């Protein structure tokens, strides 16, 4: 696959890739970096992916893995106390008008709950992947996910009323 073919088949998926990265990482700049890093990884594998039918699935899998790596790294270096505080929106594109209601409600969750919820919901990560990326125990991940989903439902029901 040459450069032009790569741009035609891979680049158009950047919006979807950004959406996943932004949801999983919760930060616009980090999400842009993740998409860029994914492009570099895909470029390195361009000879292998030449024959696949669904580029989008492959692109999304790569960006998800890049995000998991970033979350793992962030967990290693971030202040753990900081991770449990609800964060303000750091993505300038996430306004009330543009942001989907589920993502808006998810912003009200606590740090770990939000992180786990977004990884599972938008990154389509299974519990094992979340365990590996966050370093949390399996039961902890399951519990955080369960509480986050129930909380989102409560918030959604009150939002609808």
């Amino acid at each position: 696959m040459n450069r032009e073919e790569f741009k035609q088949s891979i680049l158009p998926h950047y919006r979807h890739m950004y959406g996943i990265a932004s949801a999983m990482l919760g930060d616009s700049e980090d999400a842009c970096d993740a998409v860029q890093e994914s492009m570099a990884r895909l470029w390195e594998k361009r000879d292998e992916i030449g024959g696949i039918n669904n580029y989008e699935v492959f692109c999304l899998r790569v960006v998800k893995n890049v995000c998991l790596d970033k979350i793992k790294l962030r967990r290693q270096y971030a202040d753990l106390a900081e991770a449990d505080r609800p964060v303000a929106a750091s993505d300038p594109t996430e306004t009330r008008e543009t942001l989907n209601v589920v993502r808006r409600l998810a912003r009200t969750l606590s740090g770990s709950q939000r992180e786990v919820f977004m990884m599972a919901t938008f990154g389509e990560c299974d519990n094992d992947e979340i365990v590996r990326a966050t370093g949390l125990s399996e039961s902890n991940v399951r519990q955080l996910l369960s509480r986050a989903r129930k909380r989102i439902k409560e918030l959604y029901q009150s939002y609808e009323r």
Partner: protein
Amino acid sequence: MNKADNIDNIRRLVERYYDGTATPDEVGAITDFFRRSDVDELPDDLRADAMIFTETALAKATGPVPDGLESRLDSFIDSLPEKPSRRRGLIIRLSLSAAAAVAVVFVIGLALLSRNTREQVEPSDNSLMASESILQPVDTAVTVITEPSPLPDESLAEAVAPVVKKSAPARKVKSKAVAVKEFVAAAETDEYHYAMASDVCEISDPEQASQVAAQVLGMLGRTLGMAGDAIVKSDNEANKIPTAINKIAINKKLSNEK
């Protein structure tokens, strides 16, 4: 599967979803079901779930993107090398291996020179000699002709003792400069041999000698490879230090906050 069974099945999956145990495939199945269903026809207890799953699917497919991201990615793709450069880790590994190889060759060279200068007082052969102690790990692949000891029987016990012991007194009385001079002279007159241990064997056939040399070089290569691996391993361990320090700092901060 009739509609009621289907609804029951979805209910079970939704329960697993809220329990945090549903797999991504199961979540996908719930999403597909709700996207194909008319919300008004669903049971009351599933309506909010249907809305949430539909909204989530919508959020995945569409969303705001920062201005300029596409052009940034386009330029980035243009800047990517046609042939991807080898990974940085590999370059570091090769550099370390090369450095280790140079260091090991230097040390071996020094050791050989040191032994040679010690041995120069006992020249007894004019053929290319190789120590069996060096060849031991690969001796099955090499044919080595062992020459009987030229020493008389009574000195046999002494002959099998380490050569270094015999040459040690001589070293004491010779200055370094004299020793080197004699070494060079012995080499020029072809009287010098590489006696590195008591079990010395002679290789008179040039073909065999080249085989032995190849084996020794092979061993040297493996040793250098092992040295390189050890250095990389040390480097990896050293890279973990900042993480450990960070963890300690975080724990300390947390305990201080308490």
